[in-house]
Structure formats: structure tokens, C-alpha cells
């Protein structure tokens, strides 16, 4: 075999070898679903879909807490999510079983929580959207002690429940 022929064979062999190595390396480095929808790993979409649900809905809470549901759904607070005040569904229930008790806010925590939405000093709150109060102005106006917490007059799930009932009993005002 001449020197030239050997050269050509070597060139061809090296090209084939490099191509083979390149192909194998590419197969190893590029993820399986890459390029299905675009220059990214399409399986990442499904992985995102499988993420754990931590919030349920109010309906999932009312499945067990029917008494609370009857109160909550009749009042002005019916649009509030249970999970905002009490914690997430997944911290409470797992596979249909109760795994932990969610905290219930008490005392001054309640007032802080109420004022998060209802504080009139935050001027940005439209009266079309929410009823706001100033504390302690509201307490003075209602002739109650300044140490009163909101839930001593207002039911937290249906804020006008007790007030409307009291009005009905005393006949002070016609209840809508």
C-alpha cells in the first residue's frame, strides 16, 4: 500500500471516529425531551405540573367544617380565603387524614389581622371596596373599652352577625 493511500485511509478513519465520538457525546449531554417544543427540556413543563399543591380552596375546608361554612358563607367575609388566616390545607390534611391542628388567632393578633385590611389610616383603601375603621376612634365612638379586640363585637367569619342579631333583639334598627 502506498503512503498516499494510507494517508487517505487514516483521514477517513479519523473522520468516522470523530463523528462517532461526537454523536455519542451529544446523545449523552442533550436531555431526552430537549427540542420537542423549542430549545429547552420539554419534561420541565411536566415537572412543574407535578409540584405539590399547598393551598386548597375554601370548598375543600368546608368539606369537613360545615358549621363554619354556614357562618362564613352568609357574611361579608365570604370572599376571604380560610387559608390566609388559618394556614395552608397541606399543613392540616394529608391523604385525607388530619396531620396537624392549624393555629387560631387570639387576642391582639386578631386586631392586628383585622387592621391589615380595615385600617382607615392607610388612605389607599377605596370605600367602594372595603369598610375601614380607625382604631381607637372606632372604639371610642362605640363607647367600649379601648382594650377591646375586634372579635368581642364582630364575629370574625361574618362581621355583622352579632350586631344584626343584637339589633333584631333590641329592635333598634330594621335588619336588612
Amino acid at each position, binding site marked *: 500500500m502506498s503512503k498516499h493511500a494510507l494517508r487517505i485511509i487514516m483521514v477517513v478513519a479519523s*473522520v468516522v471516529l*470523530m*463523528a462517532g465520538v*461526537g*454523536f455519542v457525546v451529544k446523545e449523552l449531554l*442533550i*436531555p*431526552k*425531551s*430537549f*427540542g*420537542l*417544543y*423549542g*430549545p*429547552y*427540556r*420539554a*419534561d*420541565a*413543563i*411536566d*415537572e*412543574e*405540573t*407535578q*409540584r*405539590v*399543591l*399547598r*393551598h*386548597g*380552596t375554601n*370548598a*375543600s375546608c368546608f*368539606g369537613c367544617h360545615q358549621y363554619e361554612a354556614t357562618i362564613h358563607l352568609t357574611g361579608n*367575609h365570604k*370572599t*376571604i*380565603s380560610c*387559608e*390566609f388566616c388559618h*394556614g*395552608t*390545607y397541606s399543613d392540616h390534611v394529608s*391523604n*385525607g387524614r388530619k396531620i396537624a391542628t392549624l393555629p387560631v388567632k387570639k387576642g391582639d393578633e386578631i386586631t*392586628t389581622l383585622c387592621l*391589615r*385590611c380595615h*385600617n382607615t*389610616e*392607610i*388612605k*389607599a*383603601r*377605596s370605600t*367602594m*371596596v*372595603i369598610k375601614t375603621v380607625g382604631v381607637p376612634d372606632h372604639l371610642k365612638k362605640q363607647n367600649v373599652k379601648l382594650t377591646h379586640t375586634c372579635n368581642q363585637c364582630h364575629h370574625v367569619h361574618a362581621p355583622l352577625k352579632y350586631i344584626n342579631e343584637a339589633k333584631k333583639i333590641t329592635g333598634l334598627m330594621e335588619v336588612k
Partner: protein
Amino acid sequence: MIIKDFPPNQDCSHENFPPSIDKRDFIKKVLKGTIAGSLFLVFPMDISSVGSTAVKNSETTNNIDPTIKLPEEIPEIRDRQYDIHKQNFAFIVDITRCIGCGSCCVADKREYNVPDGNYRTWVERYIKDFDDQVYVDCPNGGLDGYQKPRTDIPLNARDTFFVPKLCNMCREAPCVQVCPVGATFTSPDGFILMDSDRCVGCAYCIQACPYSARFLNPITKTAEKCTWCYHRVRKGLLPACVEVCPTGARKFGSLNDENSEVYKILKGPGVLTVLKQSMGTLPALYYMGQRLEVV
């Protein structure tokens, strides 16, 4: 992130400069590299054979824990084949209804266990005075709500409002354009998602996002962002922030559903704006009642 300092003078010593390499060697090496590189590009990737798992998974419906009674909040998604190419979602924030309670921020942090100091969504407070001076603040991203009025500014405010911020889901997303490894992408149904397995944490996307919606997770060292709760949407549920919003300031829905609130708003005559329109990012997040000053 640990940034390693190189040992002093490595590769920089002037004694070995110029490096001892002759012209023939140099040309040989360049040619070898060129040939190998071009061969690497010549062999096309067979798309039909790969990704079969992805097709299979996206066709199946998501199995929800049967013990949870979840209502279907976005119709026509659950228990049917999800055609990923035919979806069209929109998010509308009505800032005239936002009261700055921060429920959305709390829900978001809980849904994703977002590390402290980072926010997938947050609520800003804008105060505008009669001289058109604008004051913006956002204590702890709105996580604790807005309990106190601002006292550090003059009191002649004429307009105060809250602006919830989240991912704008741009149709021309700068973050997707700049990602060097394909770790962030626009899914066929219009969501900008993250592939945290591929992310190398270069933070280029964080710089590219005009809305500052991204952050580097200090634990995983990968970029993270709001996904409009993609995992919830695929189960027919509203995003967590929309779910908990007590005033309906955040609205989400499918534009394929003519009965959805977002469809009616987008089709109606109301004024809708997007953030930083001049950047040409074409957000799918619209604002109602937005003021000019908001960026």
C-alpha cells in the same frame, strides 16, 4: 455562591510569554478543532425519537388527591386532554380594588416556600403628592401587610394606591432570550417557566427582566420566578394569589372561555395597560386603573 480566586500569577507569568508553540503546531490544532466542531454540527438531532415521555405526560390528566374536594375554578381543563398548543391565559390586576392586605404575598410564600427576602409576587405602595412627586415603598414585599401610614414624607398626598407585581409573562420575554442554557423558556401555552435542573445560576435572566420578577434562590442557587401557579392552573385551579385575594383585585382565567371574567374585561371597552409597554415585551399581565407613574 463561592467565587474562587485564582492562585496568583497562574497563566499570567510574563516569563513564559509568548508561549512556546510553533506555527505548524498551532495550525494543526486549529484545523483539528474546526473539523471536529463542524462534524458535531453536521449530524442532525433526530427530534422524532426523543421526547416521547413528554408527549405522553402532557396528554394525561393530572391525578389530584381524590380526598380533596376541589371545585373546578378554570373550566374545561380538568379531566380532559390538555392541548398545550391551544391555550391562552390572561392575568388582570385591578389596582382600584387592591387594599394592600398582602394576602397574595403570604399565599405565594406558603405555596412555594419562598426563602425570606425573596418575592415571587409583592405589593408596592405608591403615594403621589400635589407636586407630582411619587413615593414608593414596599416593606418586606407586603408580606406583613401595610399596618401603618408613611410618616417620613410630607403629608399633602393626593393619590395613594397599591400595585401588586408579579411575572408579566411577556410574549417576547427578555429572560428567555438571554438564558444561555435553555433553562427558562416560553411553554407552548404561554407560561414562562424555569427548568431548575438546567439552570446554572448565572443570573443573566435576573438582570434582563425589566420587571425585577426574578431572583436567585439562596438555597438552590438557581433562578426562580412566579409561574402564575402553573401546577394549579393545570389542575383547573386558580393561582394561589388569585385564590386568596379578598377583593377580587387579581383576576385570572382562560381566554378560550367566553364566560370568564378576564375574557369579558379584555373584550370590553375598559382601559387596560401593561407595564413598560415601550420595552416591547408584550406582557400577558394587564392592569386596570393603572397610573402613569407606575413602572
